[in-house]
């Protein structure tokens, strides 16, 4: 039977996502802003380079000019909000009732939503990761301090930068499904994904370090986002960091499926 194919649900969710003007604005302006920020930061470094001390030159990280912690925060908040709004937008307006009468199989609706949001944010994250890298290294190559894709750790950093978006977006969906209230969901997304982890620092308490090592923004800052990873029991490992990147969206997807299925609408 052709009706009820999963592909149909993906098309429906795709239409829903892009028929809201806010989606195009958020994705378009967000991408432009982060790439422009990389260009501005790299130009600044390019112009200041002759005045840098030897120490500053030795500490200089070209990848940081491309995609700083601020860029990562912006990307996570943007993607997290997008993910939250795709589900809160349905509950807050009541559209969810129309949606679920049209497609009563709730888990399929949620699966389609998760898939479309993951694909769109992964593509956006990849574009931003590649764009910021390309722009900044083109500028910095004028000073001979650019890195290339073949340099150690660079591809991992670029992959991690790109993956911040879908990780944040699916987490945002889970938060949105739980809270079902626009402002509450967006504030929680900002707090949980970025603001609180900003204050995490390696400590002398191993259990606290282990706890921090489960938080995507933290592991990106101290491990995945750096080309050279230090071996230190207080710091997360690369493998552990990837696991944290996988854990959050998977848990969020499970939460979304469960709460949407169980709750009356």
């Amino acid at each position: 039977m052709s009706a009820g194919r999963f592909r149909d649900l993906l098309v429906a969710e795709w239409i829903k996502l892009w028929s809201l003007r806010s989606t195009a604005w958020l994705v378009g302006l967000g991408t432009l802003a982060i790439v422009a920020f990389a260009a501005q930061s790299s130009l600044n470094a390019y112009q200041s380079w002759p005045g840098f001390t030897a120490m500053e030159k030795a500490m200089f990280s070209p990848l940081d000019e491309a995609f700083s912690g601020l860029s990562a925060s912006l990307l996570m908040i943007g993607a997290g909000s997008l993910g939250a709004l795709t589900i809160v937008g349905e509950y807050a307006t009541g559209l969810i009732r129309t949606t679920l009468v049209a497609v009563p199989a709730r888990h399929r609706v949620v699966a389609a939503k998760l898939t479309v949001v993951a694909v769109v944010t992964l593509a956006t994250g990849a574009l931003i990761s590649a764009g910021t890298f390309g722009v900044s290294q083109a500028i910095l190559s004028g000073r001979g301090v650019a890195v290339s894709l073949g340099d150690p750790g660079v591809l991992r950093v670029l992959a991690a930068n790109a993956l911040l978006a879908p990780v944040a977006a699916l987490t945002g969906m889970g938060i949105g499904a739980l809270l079902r209230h626009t402002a509450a969901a967006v504030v929680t997304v900002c707090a949980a994904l970025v603001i609180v982890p900003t204050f995490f620092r390696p400590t002398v308490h191993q259990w606290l370090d282990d706890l921090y090592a489960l938080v995507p923004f933290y592991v990106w800052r101290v491990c995945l986002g750096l080309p050279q990873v230090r071996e230190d029991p207080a710091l997360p490992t690369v493998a552990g960091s990837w696991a944290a990147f996988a854990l959050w969206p998977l848990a969020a997807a499970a939460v979304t499926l469960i709460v949407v299925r169980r709750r009356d609408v």
Partner: protein
Amino acid sequence: MTRFRPGIGPRAYARRPLPRRGNRPTARCGPPPSGDNVDQVIEVNGLTKRYGAVTAVHDLTFTVRPGHVTGFLGPNGAGKSTTLRMIVGLNRPTAGGATIDGRPFARHRAGLRHVGALLDAADVHGGRTAAAHLRALAAGNGLPRRRVSEVLEEVGLEAVARRRIGGFSLGMRQRLGIAAALLGDPPVLLFDEPVNGLDPEGVRWARGLFRRLAAEGRTVLVSSHLMSEMENTADRLVVIGRGELIAEESLAAFAARGAGASVVVRTPDAAELAAVLALEGGSVRADGGDALTVTGLSAARIGELAHQRRIMLSELAPRAASLEQAFMELTAGRADYRAGARTDAHAGHQPGHATGHATGHQTDHATGRRAGAPSGGAR
């Protein structure tokens, strides 16, 4: 796929039939009984929904059959919307269940092809255009894109298809909701208070549409809290009050429950005429001023009596048995009860009620009748 069987009636969109892609016959046990299309019947069985101590719907059982417009009536807060939401699987019943096509609605994959429902015109995202809203719904059910323009034309919204729903009036949203319900050319249609916000022309259009959909052999359930809306639309009625079934019968049978036909008379000599009519066996009620409502005498007989006594009449108007009146009388006891107490704990202290219905149910509550309610249907 559940589709109409030939012979039930003309297909709604016979001019533009849906492509029959991959029809799969539904498993049936023998021929359907007595001319009814068993696939289209809505069956509500022991449906109960409790929110904490409050019972919104209590042990509701009724059947809605194809080929008629069935009115779903009840005062505000009677549980109509809750019932409709449970029928389409949005709310999970505390006990009992509802089936469409013989199985719970939630088991259907392409919902729009089985049931079209307008539950609340506000259930849309104001940021999308009307066309985009319908396109997403159509896509999710594998319906061809042209259905969107077809239903927009059907409800008269083609001119605003590219405008965002946020700027729509309530009437336009109702039309959009009706358009969404028609998208999948479904054999069963549910409308919750569909004419709210429609202008008089729109109300007439909607009534005509419901009747036409029923005449095509579909099952059409239309809820309202206004009896008057049903008088010209529905053939059958399901009446509920305080979440319980009050009546399930034809419109005519329901109307007959009310006080019978009456005659309204206006005359400057109201007191004298009232005395005359009472003497002749009429039952007279003074409506204040120069108006009288008379039952038990025909308009012709009243005119004759007035003529004999040289009493001038300024108005002599027969009134058919009023549905509104029947509705009010039947639901009055329920409204009373609800205002007085909603929980079982208070039921025993309620004074007696005018109608047998209310008193009977009150006793049931006090004695914990729910213990016997079916619970196997809870999912």
